[in-house]
């Protein structure tokens, strides 16, 4: 979280500045890796993957979900949640003003977008982090929205997919944001116990409190190529250990080698691969849904009933 905030938002800032400086009008963009000048409509057609060098540029949460989910039957979850400045936090700027500026820049209320929808006909819940909203940092709204998405997935017995892109916990919400790590992890553990699949897709970058909670708890952890992923940011580590970091340190390929992620999937194949995995985990055919199919609600419903019985009897004791 914190380590991460140190490094990542500044990286983001620098890149944005570069981009502005080198792009004369709104139609062209320079690939940060191969420096090819790319025609924006062409880039968007490739979901922000550089057609020349395959570099995965960042994608807004809404574009991400817009492209990942089927076009039909989408429904946004908890869109009305608004951040609250509980501590009246103020550094060089007021937190309130930072929120207002981020909202204006991104057209989002906070750093997470959640939707119920379909992936190739299969009902799922999907959430995506908006990195340009204060570095995708997790405060109370991100935590609450994530939990509502996970709860919906749990109650309906349909898979949850998360696209993480975050610097970590949001410092301006102090301990409230730290506790979102425990809150989101608890909701995922409940999903796990109910046998509902959760896929965590790690996109550039994922650090700190988001990395050390919801992003690492997938039944499968999937990374996009060359995403920067870790607990502490590279600069903090360098300052601590005072040695040069190894080549490719904290990149997706490094994580695959060290056993942290299950696979690296190119953005262009993400829909197909995630869909394929979820269909296997949900015991569905390769395509379509069986005629009589509906989500595996029986077990969940039964479990709910038992749980609530237990709770009722338990609460009597407390």
């Amino acid at each position, binding site marked *: 979280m914190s380590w991460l905030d140190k490094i990542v938002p500044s990286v983001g800032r620098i890149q944005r500045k570069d981009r502005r400086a080198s792009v004369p009008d709104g139609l062209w963009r320079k690939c940060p890796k191969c420096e090819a000048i790319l025609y924006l409509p062409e880039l968007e057609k490739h979901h922000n993957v550089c057609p020349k060098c395959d570099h995965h540029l960042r994608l807004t949460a809404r574009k991400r979900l817009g492209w990942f989910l089927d076009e039909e039957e989408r429904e946004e979850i908890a869109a009305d949640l608004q951040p609250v400045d509980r501590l009246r936090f103020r550094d060089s700027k007021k937190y309130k003003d930072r929120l207002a500026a981020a909202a204006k820049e991104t057209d989002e209320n906070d750093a997470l977008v959640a939707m119920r929808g379909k992936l190739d006909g299969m009902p799922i819940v999907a959430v995506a982090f908006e990195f340009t909203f204060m570095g995708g940092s997790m405060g109370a709204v991100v935590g609450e929205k994530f939990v509502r998405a996970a709860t919906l997935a749990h109650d309906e017995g349909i898979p949850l997919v998360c696209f993480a892109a975050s610097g970590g916990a949001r410092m*301006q*919400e*102090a301990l409230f944001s730290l506790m979102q790590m*425990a809150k989101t992890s608890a909701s995922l553990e409940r999903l796990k116990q109910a046998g509902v699949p959760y896929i965590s897709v790690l996109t550039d970058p994922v650090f700190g409190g988001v990395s050390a909670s919801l992003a690492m708890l997938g039944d499968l952890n999937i990374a996009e190529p060359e995403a920067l992923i870790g607990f502490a940011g590279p600069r903090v580590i360098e300052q601590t250990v005072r040695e040069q970091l190894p080549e490719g340190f904290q990149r997706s390929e490094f994580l695959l080698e060290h*056993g942290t992620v299950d696979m690296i999937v190119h953005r262009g194949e993400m829909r197909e691969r995630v869909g394929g995995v979820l269909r296997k985990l949900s015991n569905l055919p390769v395509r379509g849904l069986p005629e009589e199919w509906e989500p595996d609600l029986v077990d969940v419903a039964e479990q709910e009933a038992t*749980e609530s019985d237990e709770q009722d009897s338990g609460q009597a004791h407390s």
Partner: protein
Amino acid sequence: MNPNYLDFEQPIAELQAKIEELRLVGNDSKININEEVNKLQEKSKKLTEQIFRDLSAWQISQLSRHPKRPYMLDYIEHVFTDFDELHGDRHFADDAALVGGIARLDDKPVMIIGHQKGRDVKEKVRRNFGMPRPEGYRKACRLMEMAERFNLPVLTFIDTPGAYPGIDAEERGQSEAIAYNLAVMSRLKTPIVTTVVGEGGSGGALAIGVCDELQMLQYSTYSVISPEGCASILWKSAEKASEAAQAMGITAERLNELGFVDTLIDEPLGGAHRQPGETAERIKHALLASLDRLQSMEVSALLARRYDRLMSYGAPA
């Protein structure tokens, strides 16, 4: 300057030095200096009261890392009996920054897990300044699951600058180790009581801190990032740590006002390190009271309560 006293404690240090000097003189001569010493002692007490009446968040943050502050193992001696330390995560190594084992609290068996900083340089290095690596968190997880099997309540003690930010820690999945503990602790079928005794540093603290009841010593802190870290990012200068400490509300008292704390444990005058035995007594008393409340609950009720508690953090009003 006396290194065993913080900046703002220096006037107390000077007075104490005077008292010591006077005592030495008194031993050598026949002059009765008792009265004078008593007077100075009284003055020292008043001075301490005065200084400690109005501490800033930053001063409390310094107290939480005071070089003389008792660590987890110092308390264990006083609070528990019959402690068997258990080592290793069974996969890679034993992490000395995170200590765990079984012990008795007033004869009842419990599992205790906590961060341990080192006292002298050699021990500090061996214990990595209380910053665990993934194997530390995985050992903690192993012990918690063992506690669940044998119906032992889990008592955790937080005192860490944070999880270790190192190359090896990243290679072995620091994030995953922390995340996994958060998930496991949310459903562990036994009471969990967490006591922050010093520094509650971020995810590295929370990884053993998901609990049914949270206790904090008066001069301990709990925070999403260190004041220095926050200052260097948001104020662009680590010098502004004092402002950052204030803004984040990291002290036990402030967090109690915000509703995070179940039991605020007062420290003896001048801080825990002035009377470690008395502090341990107070911790023990609070732990017993807490376990009394929790152990009378059905497990399912306990878990439902823990889940609701987690969900309540930052939930819309």
